[in-house]
């Protein structure tokens, strides 16, 4: 049994929103343990509670009840200490379009306490890591979607975090850009950073993640390695061959392929 402190631990995590039609229970008691050094995938259909969970773990959303720790630090009681240990790249690729890539990274470094020279050197290093040296001094508004994602990834790494949170890092990217981001994620993980990523793409989870959890309707419905989850489904259903992760996902969320294709949900994070 692994006795090391988990990189991410959530216990009974709950988030309620007050809405016009009453209280909305976005997350209903999520328990998670992510081991240090792994790539952990967090999957779920639209509106299942993925983004709400990641926003609570990254201190961006208050926790209604339960607790969460990142790199051993409680995110509610010591948010600044937790922020120093985590990097965050959210769905929107939160970048300032009027700045250049270099300016953005230097500013991010300064906000994490680096001196001017140190921040400039770190920016240079990160621009090389995500292969954006040629575009470093161009305004971000001129970047392609893939370049923005890579820059966002770089900005989340400026302070060398122990845990990197990526919320749907490849949504909206073309296949080539998606593969580039996958490579970056693997490279970052190889340097010792724990990666917690949400995704809607099951092949992405299969390709990248050592373990994953599936959330549906605010609750974790499956958790394990991709192989474990496939084996469990094959044995339970008595299937002749190994199911795909798509099959595991559909089984876990109680959806059929027809249902998913026609499903439209409004998400409020």
């Amino acid at each position, binding site marked *: 049994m692994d006795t090391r402190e988990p990189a991410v631990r959530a216990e009974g995590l709950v988030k309620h929103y007050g809405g016009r039609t009453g209280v909305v229970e976005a997350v209903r008691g999520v328990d998670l343990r992510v081991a240090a050094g792994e790539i952990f995938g967090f999957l779920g259909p639209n509106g299942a509670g993925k983004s709400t969970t990641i926003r609570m773990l*990254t*201190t*961006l*959303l*208050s926790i209604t009840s339960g607790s969460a720790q990142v790199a051993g630090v409680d995110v509610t009681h010591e*948010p*600044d*200490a937790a*922020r*120093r240990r*985590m990097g*965050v790249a*959210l*769905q*929107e*690729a*939160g*970048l*300032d*379009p*009027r*700045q250049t890539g270099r*300016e953005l990274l230097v*500013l*991010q470094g*300064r*906000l*994490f*306490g680096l001196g001017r020279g140190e921040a400039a050197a770190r920016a240079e290093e990160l621009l090389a890591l995500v292969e954006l040296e040629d575009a470093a001094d161009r*305004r971000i508004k001129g970047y392609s979607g893939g370049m923005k994602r890579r820059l966002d990834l770089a*900005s989340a790494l400026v302070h060398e975090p122990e845990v990197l949170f990526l919320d749907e890092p490849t949504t909206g990217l073309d296949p080539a850009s998606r593969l580039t981001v996958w490579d970056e994620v693997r490279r970052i993980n190889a340097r010792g950073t724990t990666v917690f990523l949400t995704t809607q793409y099951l092949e992405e989870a299969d390709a990248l993640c050592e373990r994953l959890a599936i959330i549906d309707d605010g609750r974790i419905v499956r958790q394990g390695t991709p192989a474990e989850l496939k084996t469990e489904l094959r044995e339970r259903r008595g299937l002749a061959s190994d199911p795909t992760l798509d099959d595991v996902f559909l089984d876990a969320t109680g959806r059929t392929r027809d249902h998913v294709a026609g499903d439209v949900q409004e998400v409020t994070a």
Partner: protein
Amino acid sequence: MSQAWVLGQRALREAWRTPEALVPTLFIPLFFLVVNVGQAGKIFPAASTEFLKGQGYGAFQLPASLLLAASFGTAALFLVEDIEGGYFDKLRATPIPRTSIVAGRLIAELAKGLLIATLIVLLGLVFGISIASGVLGFLLLILLTALWSCVFVGFMQLIALKTRSAAATNSGGLVFFPLLFLTPNFVPRDMLTRPMEIAASINPVTYVMEALRSLILDDLDWERIGRGFLVVAVLGAIMVALNVRMIRHYD
């Protein structure tokens, strides 16, 4: 403080790279100055109007234009862009004091306010307005205008943080127009009708306007100047406190 400063530099770059947002800040107040003086200038001739202290009506109207220039609050619209684009969350995910996020924008607003007020007053000087309180008065005039712009941006940022909408933030800024006109805008307070005088006396903008006006028309009148700075200090402290509170509780 160093984090507030780097965020201030970023906000200044943002303003510098969006000159189209600065042009109306300069043009519209000057437009109103010209129009107001053109409409009422003959009613209040310099030679026979005691409250003008020997200057033209433009000198009396200049504070209203300065206040208008300081009440555009474009920084709050940039904040809405940050919120909508996700950069605001990026800032919230850094271990910086929440006051730095507010102070960064206010530092940039102060610098912009100083620049715009200086340009408007210098243009006023070119057209014959003089600053009766001298060089120190000139500097206080610019400083008080710029500080008011910080107060107003603080107010606009509250709307931005609450609504997260550019349209709502823009509309919220229109609240200032009634406040600007519920002041001794065209004549001194003692010449207003009684209901208007009461309304103007309750309105804090009146004291800022009177302080600015005294710096243009009178020698250093510390009582009036002090009241203007006091209003700005109190409202400024309230706005900063509310902004920080709102960012801390932002979900």
